[in-house]
């Protein structure tokens, strides 16, 4: 990175920290610190919701995902607009009417204290872990750029986020998210434009789309039904719907965002805005991955994108094997380049036979290249068993560092940091709110004064920050970060959603039945993850249905017992 890049990056970090501290002025009680004022318009609610969900993980992982696996990941978001509609109809008016601070307060009003505590507890576990991954995402940038130790980098980045969040509170989180989202969208656009401009001059947009499409990178929709297939229309619409319903309906980091809307209409419009804009935005980010695939046909592609690991290999005992692998990979890349140019010629001449032949050869070379990349991954692992052998998260990052001009690198890295800080601060704020409002203030100390709860909230934010940093230290063993976050969410969301659905729609069921049904559902979901190959999106459906069905059964048995007892009396 040049001096200009450092200037852009550091001034942005400094601005965010100072801005957060500046905005924290006047927070004299827990309501101001954790909730802010209910004063946000729909566009701010919508952008805040999007900023909370789209962290640096989205920006770093998704292009890499499309580069390796094609754009089929977009199907994951198909259930989201449906969930936004359902939440607008049901959850938004209920939460506004009850004037709750956290989603879990509703559970005590509807069921009992133990169900509220269980809901809050499940949220704290999964969101605490997810916050760790959000910190880890920008930390890999610095470690890859400067060769810093990833563990120390996590502590450095996490420390800045904690400082800003503790000082800022909810108000600063909301204000900064608006601007950060605008920067993120500009960053996506700028990356796509620069990437396209760097392709050979004779390539038109149609050529690029055709090369990516023929190579299988535009595999947007798959209608085949397969429980073990991670991304298809059915898992996206059904599993994604349940995941989005749980995430936006029961996760305090999102509930807190739309509860900040100044009216029900503003909250609803914010959610629907997210439902309309989210898929196209995700498509654009994934398309950067498809563009990268074409870019690396015409530019030398590293066999493994994490430079820290390849440097270690080049100095280690496997350097000869790695060198041979690199040389073979380079030969395949040259063949791929020729086939891509043949394909362009065939497209220009509209010659079907050339198109078919060059496509077949291009796919053949892709398979060979993938196999070599797999060998490189194995070599990385053999060289250092503790290393990260998955380079999906480094693909976009490596392009930024190697090819983008001075100043733009700093800007894009600042965008990634901003996105990550925005999500992390929102998560830490929600963790602190839930812990203080639903656990500490409700069950541990009900007699504190406003200053005491304000201080407790700040200390809770610090503690959750330390916990998240600890989680970040182990995140490099989780593969694609964006998948890891969603798998983690799916382990808990189905159960939490089941509790809320029973609360909203099945008045017959009471607290004890739903509490034990939720415990059983959680055990079943964890067993599905451990012992079956069922795709993670289905966990949301399984967890939710088990809660509903077992709660119905338990309530039926409880009522039967009560009837027997009353008869015997």
């Amino acid at each position, binding site marked *: 990175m040049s001096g200009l890049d450092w200037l852009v990056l550091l001034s942005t970090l400094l601005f965010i920290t100072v801005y957060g501290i500046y905005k924290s002025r006047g927070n004299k009680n827990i309501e101001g610190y954790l909730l802010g004022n209910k004063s946000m318009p729909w566009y701010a609610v919508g952008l805040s919701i999007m900023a909370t969900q789209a962290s640096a993980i989205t920006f770093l992982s998704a292009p890499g995902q499309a580069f390796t696996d094609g754009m089929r990941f977009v199907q994951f978001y198909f259930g989201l*607009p449906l969930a936004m509609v359902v939440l607008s109809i049901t959850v938004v008016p209920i939460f506004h*009417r009850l004037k709750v601070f956290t989603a879990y307060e509703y559970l005590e009003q509807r069921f009992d204290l133990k169900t509220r505590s269980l809901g809050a507890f499940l949220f704290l576990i999964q969101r605490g872990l997810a916050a760790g991954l959000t910190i880890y995402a920008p930390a890999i940038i610095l470690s890859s750029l400067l060769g810093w130790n990833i563990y120390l980098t996590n502590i450095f980045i996490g420390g800045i986020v904690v400082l800003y969040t503790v000082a800022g509170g909810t108000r600063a989180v909301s204000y900064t998210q608006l601007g950060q989202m605008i920067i993120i969208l500009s960053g996506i656009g700028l990356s796509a434009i620069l990437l396209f401009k760097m392709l050979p001059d004779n390539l038109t947009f149609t050529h690029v789309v055709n090369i990516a499409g023929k190579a299988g990178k*535009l595999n947007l929709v798959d209608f085949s039904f397969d429980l073990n297939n991670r991304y298809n229309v059915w898992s996206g619409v059904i599993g994604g719907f349940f995941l989005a319903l749980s995430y936006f309906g029961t996760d305090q980091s999102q509930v807190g965002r739309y509860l900040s809307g100044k009216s029900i*209409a503003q909250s609803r*419009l914010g959610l629907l805005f997210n439902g309309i804009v989210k898929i196209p935005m995700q498509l654009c980010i994934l398309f950067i991955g498809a563009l990268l695939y074409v870019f690396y046909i015409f530019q030398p592609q590293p066999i493994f994108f994490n430079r820290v690991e390849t440097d270690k290999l080049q100095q280690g005992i496997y350097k000869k094997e790695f060198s041979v692998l690199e040389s073979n990979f380079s030969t395949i890349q040259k063949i791929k380049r020729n086939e891509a140019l043949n394909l362009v010629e065939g497209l220009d001449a509209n010659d079907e036979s050339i198109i078919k032949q060059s496509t077949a050869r291009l796919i053949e070379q892709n398979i060979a290249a993938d196999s070599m990349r797999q060998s490189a991954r194995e070599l990385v692992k053999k060289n250092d068993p503790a290393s990260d052998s998955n380079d999906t998260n480094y693909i976009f990052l490596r392009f930024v560092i190697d090819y983008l001009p001075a100043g733009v690198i700093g800007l894009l890295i600042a965008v990634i940091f901003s996105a990550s800080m925005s999500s992390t601060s929102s998560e830490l704020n929600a963790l602190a709110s839930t812990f203080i409002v639903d656990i500490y203030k409700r069950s541990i100390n009900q007699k504190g004064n406003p200053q005491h709860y304000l201080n407790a909230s700040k200390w809770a934010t610090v503690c959750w920050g330390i916990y998240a940093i600890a989680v970040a230290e182990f995140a490099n063993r989780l593969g694609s970060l964006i998948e890891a976050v969603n798998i983690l969410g799916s382990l808990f969301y189905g159960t939490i959603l089941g509790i809320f659905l029973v609360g909203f729609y099945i008045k017959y069921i009471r607290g004890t039945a739903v509490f034990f049904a939720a415990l059983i559902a959680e055990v079943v979901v964890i067993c599905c993850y451990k012992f079956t190959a069922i795709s993670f999106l289905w966990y949301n459906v399984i967890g939710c249905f088990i809660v509903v069905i077992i709660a119905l059964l338990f309530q039926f048995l409880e009522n039967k017992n009560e009837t027997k007892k009353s008869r015997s009396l």
Partner: protein
Amino acid sequence: MPESNMSINDEKPPLFKSWKGWYIVTISILIIQVVIYYLITESFK
């Protein structure tokens, strides 16, 4: 009618007469996107 319920019922959406309009728009955009993405996928199969 309690004050909170009144404010909920008075929430009129912009552009449409009722919220149904916005829900239909959101779902229609989703369906259109799935169809377009399907056509793109099929054209490269």
